[in-house]
């Protein structure tokens, strides 16, 4: 791993695997997004509450 070629190959492998995982996830997932019914691009001023469950500070149900 000390040679530049090995480091680059390792990083390239990481990016290839990562990209494949993202693509596989996208193919498998059920999209939440409807491009014909876009909300405002930003939450501020949209009048719609943010998703309160998708942050590191979210807690489990009791």
């Amino acid at each position, binding site marked *: 791993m000390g040679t530049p070629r090995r*480091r680059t190959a390792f990083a390239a492998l990481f990016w290839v695997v990562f990209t494949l995982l993202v693509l596989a996830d996208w193919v498998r997932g059920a999209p939440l997004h409807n491009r014909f019914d876009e909300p405002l691009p930003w939450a501020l001023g949209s009048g719609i509450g943010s998703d309160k469950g998708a942050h590191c*500070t979210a807690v489990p149900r009791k």
Partner: protein
Amino acid sequence: MAAIEGSVRALSAGGRLPRRVLLVAVVVAGWMLTTWFAGLRQGLLFLVGVGLGGALASVAFGFTTGWRVWIRQRDPTGLLAQFLAISLAMVVSIPLIATHPQELTGAVGPLSVSLVVGAFVFGAAMQVTDGCGSGTLYKAGLGNVISIAVLPGFVAGSFLGAAQLDWWLRLGSLGPLTVQQFIGTRLAVVAQLGVFAVLSVLVWRARKQLHTRWQGRGIFIAAVVLAAFALANLVVAGQPWGIVYGLGLWGAKIASALGWDPSGNAYWGRAPQLAQIAAPLVDDVTSITNLGLLLGSLVVALWRGQAFPPAAPTAAQWIASIATGFVLGYSARLAFGCNIGAYFSGISSGSLHGWVWFACAFAGSTVGIRLRERLGFKG
């Protein structure tokens, strides 16, 4: 990515396209794909992530390193830059969240036993791997082999830590508390600025090291840029910048794909989590900034010719990195965030858990630095 770098070089050498134009084109293509497949908001958040990754990578803005050079050498530069970034984000975030409570949510976590344990362990682990939440991501993005080795364990640990968080919370919790609950919004901003001012004076007066690794104003400009992008994240996503939730979600998705049923779990079985597990990760606001951050750091590193930094870890260092990555992820979930979700965004939301995280993680770092030295890691 090596192929991309090779192509960039080949095209540049041929004089057909400047290398930097190609790098910008990669970012624009990523933004367009994200917007097409996940929407305008996710496209904007992808760009926010690229900006965050670019700012971190351009000056090696390390939360971990900033603490370590202070503890070891009394170099205050990194800590002062962190205080500046969080203060700038905070003076806008707290009033904005207070005036738009339906649309914007702060990063407010409970004060709990798990927070104290998790933050201390995270502080130690991040020194061993030389990377916190943001540090691990941006270094993995630009091709640091240690950070790439840390990332899978980080994902697994974040997933499992969240899955077992209900057990940890039963050990004791006061619930989420903010400074503004006690003294109001304006005084909360003033009080937190005052604490950062006092801390800044203390670390400056105690400085010993004048030859810092961060030369010039670059790190302070990066701090301002980080604050600006963190605010953009709040305005666009409706919640402050976070990292570890996204990594845990990736773990939950992998576990779900392997047959695990999340519906019975106290954390992953909640309706918002079940929806996120079923949806593509590009629909998750935290995951999309993480993706942008990874790409932004790579683009900036290639732009500056600093990608794929030298590293030749020993077998023991490989094993330590992979194992410590798991500890990082698990402890970050117990602590309701890493240096970003808890320290940066928690404090800039006025959450008391951010301050407790800072104190406990800093104490843990003093232990982690000794572990790092024992394992023979450089720097």
